[in-house]
């Protein structure tokens, strides 16, 4: 817990100064040095608060000639309780925000809990709304999405080429890895990848250049946010060990309905807000259930979307979280 920043904040990894020094380097030597630098750390900026912050300006200035993509999470279509009686409505607003910010974005990822109860009508509502983003969208399941037939209806609709919900693809030089850590959970345990998926991951990474940026996305955090609330993945460390040789690794998760991040070596971890309802900071409530007693008009400031940019010439990644409303 000590390493974790629970508040929306601006964070720069320890090699930020080095990054600034390298920012102008475009020669081959400079590029090579940049790769070395990328192996040492990541300049990583997160704005969890106001969209018009200095950071958003920084990101906007950096968007030219960069690769970027969007993330939404935890839409929980079917949930209709305090503090949100209209989860399709807030998902629609989130997709509207994606549309407003997506300039240049190559794709959209959804980090799970698309539905509340794995019902086909819930999947269909989410599917229709998210198609409105008009972006190539890649999904991973949340535990709420695999409650029927071992997740078959979710996989058929959202990961048709990956019947177990894990897969990888390359886009503009970045290797994306989608992991499923929400099935075959054990009593008393956390999220679970399982031996078969870890074996697949090892094969997927085999022979890959260590300089290729890796972006991993999965529903439950791969790092332990809070063991008592089940916010972590039992064999997450095994997956991270396989990723250790790579110079730039970014892990994007959902599940905990709040922005949290940390940087550990070459690996940056980030969780996204929900589009449905907020959950309490770990240990600050009797349970991880929804925060129900939000002051009137405050719901939208707790929901939001994420935009991730890989800056080609300077810092490799900028991650900007934007709430639906202040």
């Amino acid at each position, binding site marked *: 817990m000590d390493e974790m920043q629970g508040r929306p904040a601006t964070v720069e990894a320890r090699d930020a100064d080095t990054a600034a020094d390298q920012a102008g380097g475009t020669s081959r030597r400079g590029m090579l040095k940049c790769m070395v630098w990328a192996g040492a750390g990541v300049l990583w900026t997160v704005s969890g608060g106001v969209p018009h912050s200095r950071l958003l300006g920084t990101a906007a200035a950096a968007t030219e000639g960069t690769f970027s993509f969007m993330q939404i999470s935890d839409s929980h279509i079917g*949930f209709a*309780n305090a503090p949100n009686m209209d989860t399709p409505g807030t998902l629609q607003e989130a997709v509207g925000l994606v549309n407003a910010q997506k300039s240049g974005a190559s794709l959209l990822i959804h980090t799970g809990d698309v539905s509340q109860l794995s019902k086909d009508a819930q999947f269909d509502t989410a599917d229709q709304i998210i198609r409105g983003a008009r972006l190539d969208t890649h999904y991973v399941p949340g*535990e709420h999405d695999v*409650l029927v037939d071992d997740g078959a209806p979710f996989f058929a609709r959202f990961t048709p080429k990956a019947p177990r919900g894990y897969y990888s693809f390359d886009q503009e030089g970045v290797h994306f890895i989608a992991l499923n850590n929400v099935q075959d959970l*054990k*009593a*008393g345990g956390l999220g679970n990848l399982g031996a078969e998926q870890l074996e697949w991951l090892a094969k997927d990474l085999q022979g890959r250049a260590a300089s290729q940026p890796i972006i991993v996305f999965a529903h439950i955090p791969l790092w332990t946010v809070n063991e008592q609330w*089940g916010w972590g993945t039992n064999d997450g460390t095994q997956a991270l060990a396989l990723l250790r040789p790579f110079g730039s690794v970014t892990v994007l998760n959902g599940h905990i309905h709040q922005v949290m991040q940390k940087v550990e070596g070459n690996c940056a971890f980030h969780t996204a807000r929900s589009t449905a309802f907020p959950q309490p900071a770990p240990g600050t409530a009797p349970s*991880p*259930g929804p925060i129900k007693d939000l002051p009137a008009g405050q719901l939208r400031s707790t929901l939001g979307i994420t935009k991730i940019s890989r800056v080609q010439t300077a810092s490799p990644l900028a991650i900007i979280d934007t709430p639906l409303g202040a």
Partner: protein
Amino acid sequence: MSPSRLVASLGLALLLASSAALAEDAAVSIDNFTFSPAEVTVAAGTRITWTNNDDIPHAVVDADNPKTTKSPPLDTGDSYSRVFDQPGTYHYFCSLHPHMQGTVVVR
């Protein structure tokens, strides 16, 4: 039958009646991501009913046979019942939130 034996028989009958009532029903409530009570001890033949009072779905899944012995997902207000005929100790958990655990002891 002497009066004292009659009283004893009545007492036994009452005792049987009350254990019969015990053998019919027990309840476990799900609140704040917790099974309450976390451990119940019941007579063989007891029907246990779990009721989800949370705003988040939960499930009741046998820890030893998670694939076969499980409830459907329980939405807010939903209940699930299972009759325990065989003596033994049964550990269960929520497959969505596996840190939620409970035990049924059947005598």
